[in-house]
Structure formats: C-alpha cells, structure tokens
C-alpha cells in the first residue's frame, strides 16, 4: 500500500493546481467557451471511463450498458433541477443514487451467475432505459427535455476528482484485492473465502453511481437531453476508453479518455471523416499496443522507480 501513497500527494496537488489555473483562465476570460467545454467533456469522459474500469478492469465483469446508467443520471438529475427547482448538487447526487439503484436491480440477478449473462443483461437494460425515456411524455419523449446549463468546470472537476479518489481508495484496499481476485479467477476467489457475488454487485453499483453522476453533468452541459444520446454506440464509446487504456489500468482509462476526447473534438468539424479517422486511431493503437496504452501498469508505477529507496526489487532478476 505504501508504495502508492508516495505519488498520491504530488498527483493530488498537481491536479488541484491544474484546476486553479484553468479556473483562473476561465474567470479572466482567457479560456473561451469552446476550450472550457472540451475540458468539461474530458472530465465527464474520465468519470465514465474510471467507473467502468472498476467494473471491467478491476472486477472483470463485462458490462456493456454503461450509457444506460448515464441516461438514468442524466434524466433524473434534469427532473430534479427543472421540475423541482432543487440545487444542481442535489440533482447530481440523486442522479447517481438512482443510477446506483438501477445497478443494484440489474446486478443482483445477473451477477449471481457466472459467465456472460451480465453483458446480455446490461445491453438489454440500456436499451430498455432508452426506450422508456423515449416514451415518457413527462420528460419530452423523442423531442427531449429542456435543461438549463448548470455544469461548469468546478462541478465537473471536483466530481471527477471524487470519482477517482473513491475508486482508487477502493482498489487499494482489501476490498479492491477481493474484487481483483474475482477478475483473476472467480472459482479460486470463492474458494479463498471471498463472497464473490457481494463484491461483483458492490463494484457494479459503485460504477453505476458514477455513471449516473457523469450523466447528470452531461445533461446539464447541453440545453437539452435526448434519449438518442444514450444509445448502444455511447456504451461502446465508453467501453473503448477502458479497453484502449489497458484493462486493469486506471491511469490508462484516464489517459485514453483525454486522448480520445481530444481526437473526436478535433475531428468535430469533419463529421464524414471523423468516424474513419477515429476508427483508424483505434486500430493502430490496438495493432501496436494490443494490451492497451498502459497494459495493466499505472502512472504511479513509474514514480516508484525514483521515489523508493531502491534495492527493494531484488527478487526480479532471480526469476525467469
């Protein structure tokens, strides 16, 4: 555990300094709406990627309906702010909690079983959610629902930071080790006394919660929320962030969220070539780094080399 906390404080301080600089630039009008929006998109995608990383990368459960939980958060938070006039923070938390509840309802029956039931269940769930919102007049049906812009850099940044902290702290504890062991070998994990269903459901619910938070930030960043924003392709987009980063690497998920958001933002003006170039980038990365950008490594692993006193890894060369 100790070896990671060495990089923890420098990274946290760097993040806060980065936040302050950006916030300063926004307040002095030196950073325009376009670039601010790009940063907000990056942060939302980081929340989505990191929360799905917990489910797929850490616990090894193949969920392909993350956009469904995002939709729940997006709509529920919009109802809270637009219909009930409650503060945005309350809306974000309600969005997360209802998404978590949805996660619990989908997770308990499908995670009890071994195998690929979860993929099918989450895929179906996301479609059902989309179709439900499409058919509810209260939230505007296919025409969507008007939402005021409330998402700003500060909200997005701090919810992103909370997401990362919660998931890092979970992962680097006995609970995270239990979840990892399920990914590695569920039968052995069970045989070592781990309540595998419990940990799968917990990871899934935490993942759904933060997907809901991301959905709330997302819907309040546009002026409208539409069912079509949360289709299967959205789930695939999020999945790609995790796979591209390297399954099991949190820093990889973050890096690929930054990278791919930038790529698709730059290509925004060329919609016809955008999908082609986006796909090419993915193919190239997968050809040259099939294990993902980071493999299973973390950024902090690179800090270890020069922050530890050295000579600790002597076991390395005795094993071939």
């Amino acid at each position: 555990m100790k070896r990671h906390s060495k990089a923890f404080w420098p990274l946290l301080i760097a993040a806060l300094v980065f936040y302050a600089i950006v916030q300063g630039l926004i307040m002095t009008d030196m950073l325009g709406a376009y670039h601010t929006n790009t940063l907000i998109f990056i942060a939302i995608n980081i929340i989505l990627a990191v929360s799905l990383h917990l489910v797929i990368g850490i616990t090894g459960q193949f969920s392909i309906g993350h956009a469904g939980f995002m939709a729940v958060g997006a709509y529920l938070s919009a109802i809270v702010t637009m219909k009930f006039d409650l503060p945005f923070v309350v809306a974000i938390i309600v969005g997360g909690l209802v998404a978590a509840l949805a996660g619990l309802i989908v997770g308990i029956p499908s995670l009890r079983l071994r195998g690929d039931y979860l993929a099918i269940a989450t895929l179906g769930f996301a479609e059902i959610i989309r179709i439900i919102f499409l058919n509810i007049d209260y939230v505007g049906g296919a025409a969507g629902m008007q939402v005021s812009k409330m998402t700003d850099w500060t909200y997005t940044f701090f919810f992103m930071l909370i997401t990362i902290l919660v998931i890092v702290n979970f992962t680097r504890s006995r609970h995270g080790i239990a979840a990892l062991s399920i990914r590695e070998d569920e039968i052995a994990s069970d045989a070592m006394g781990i309540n595998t269903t419990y940990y799968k459901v917990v990871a899934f619910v935490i993942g759904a919660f933060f997907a809901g938070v991301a959905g709330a930030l997302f819907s309040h960043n546009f002026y409208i929320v539409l069912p079509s924003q949360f289709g299967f392709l959205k789930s695939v987009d999020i999945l790609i962030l995790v796979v591209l980063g390297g399954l099991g690497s949190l820093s990889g998920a973050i890096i690929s969220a930054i990278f791919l958001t930038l790529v698709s933002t730059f290509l925004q003006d060329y919609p016809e070539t955008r999908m082609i170039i986006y796909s090419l980038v993915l193919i190239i990365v997968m050809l040259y780094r099939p294990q993902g950008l980071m493999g299973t490594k973390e950024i902090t692993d690179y800090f270890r080399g020069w922050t530890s006193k050295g000579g600790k890894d002597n076991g390395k060369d005795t094993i071939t």
Partner: protein
Amino acid sequence: MEKTPLLEVKQAGIQFGGLKAVQNLNLVLYPGELVGLIGPNGAGKTTSFNLLTGVYVPTEGDVVFQGKRINGIAPYKVTQSGMSRTFQNIRLFRDMTVLDNVKVAYHALAKHTMLASILRLPSHFAGEKKMEEDAIEFLKIFRLDRYKDELAKNLPYGQQRRLEIARALAANPKLLLLDEPAAGMNPQETHDLMELIAFIRKKFDLTILLIEHDMNLVMGVCERIYVLDHGQLLAEGPPEVIRNDPKVIEAYLGEEVTE
C-alpha cells in the same frame, strides 16, 4: 482414535445429466489425520472435493463438517468455516503479486469496512498494515517472501504449487484438501513437497485429505487411504492393505492398459 470426526461424508453422490460422477461416497476424517484419496483418472476424486467444498451441491447424501451439515452452502462460507483447498490445475491469481495472493485469503479475517477504506479512516490503515505484516510473516514460513512483489504467474512451477498451498493455509483452515499437488513435478520437487506437507501438518495442527494419482507416493505418507474407481469407493484402509488389495491392483492395471 475415538474422537469425534472432523469431516463425515455420508452416502454422498452427484449426477451430471445421466452420469453418476460420484455415488455412495462415505468418508470419515478424524482431527490430525493425513488421509489419501486415490484412483485412476476420471474416478471422481476432484468431483468429490467439489462436493465437500460446496462447488457442487450433492444430489444425494450429506456432508457433515465439525458436526454441521454443510451441503448446499456456498464455497466461500465453507472456506470461512475452516475447510480450504488447492486445485489440480493451479488456480493462482496470476496477475496479482505473491503477497496479494495471500492477502486474498486473509481478507475474510480482516475487519475494516469498505467505507473506512474509501474514506481512508484510521481503521483502514491499521487493518491494511496488519494484513500486510501478517501476509509477509506467512510467506516467510514458506520461504516465498523474497518473491512477494513478483506476479504469481512469473514464479517457477514448483513455487506456484507452494504458493497455492500457502494461500490455502492463509485462510486458516482446520481441514486442508490438496488436489494432486505433485502433478507435473520432478522427483526432487515431489520430495520437497512431501516434506512441506509433513511440516505444515505439524505447524498448523492440520487434518489433510490428499488426492494423488501416483499410488506409491501416497503410500509413503498417508495413514489411511480411500480408493475411488468409477465414482464409487473401491477400498479403504491402511497403505499395506490397499497395496495388496486385488480390486485396487486391477483398477490400476486396467488403467495402464487403456492409457
């Protein structure tokens, strides 16, 4: 040995579709015993372990452990109640470190909550520190501490077997089930393994049920032996009786012909 049995299997059996993989299984283990379970390939030895540990629920009969009927109980609960196992095909957490492999087994013994870990409360740090120290001490017993930061998959084969046994013991069992621990080992490694088994048995005050394909090996270390063939008990008794049992000889000869 008129003590109460630690484990009692009564007429247990399991059926997969039409196949009776194990039937009428009767086993009794007393505290402190080292008992062998042998039989040709496909006899139902591994399936028997799966019946005992809750991986399969017996379709007939009962498994009684420490006086409690445990059939139908989830494997993790069986482990927490004091029965732990290794697997015929090593099942380590391959992409986790040696230390973390042992920590998984310690997990159930630690108390700090998930909320404490997420909020990094003092109980998290205390709990994790104790787990770490205990796990390292534990690895030292098995002379695996120098590998602690290696990924399990990078260990040499013999050490992987050793780690799997260490991990099973870290769960603090009273009964240890070993499924062909010597499989794939050379004679030297097998010899070391047998010494290890004798050592842990004393050190941890264990009862051991050992599956072994190689009859000679089991004869050397076990006090009593159960012989399984075609899912049914063929014989039971001390090594010298088993060695000369014509039915056992036939079962093993039959296998050599078919192999």
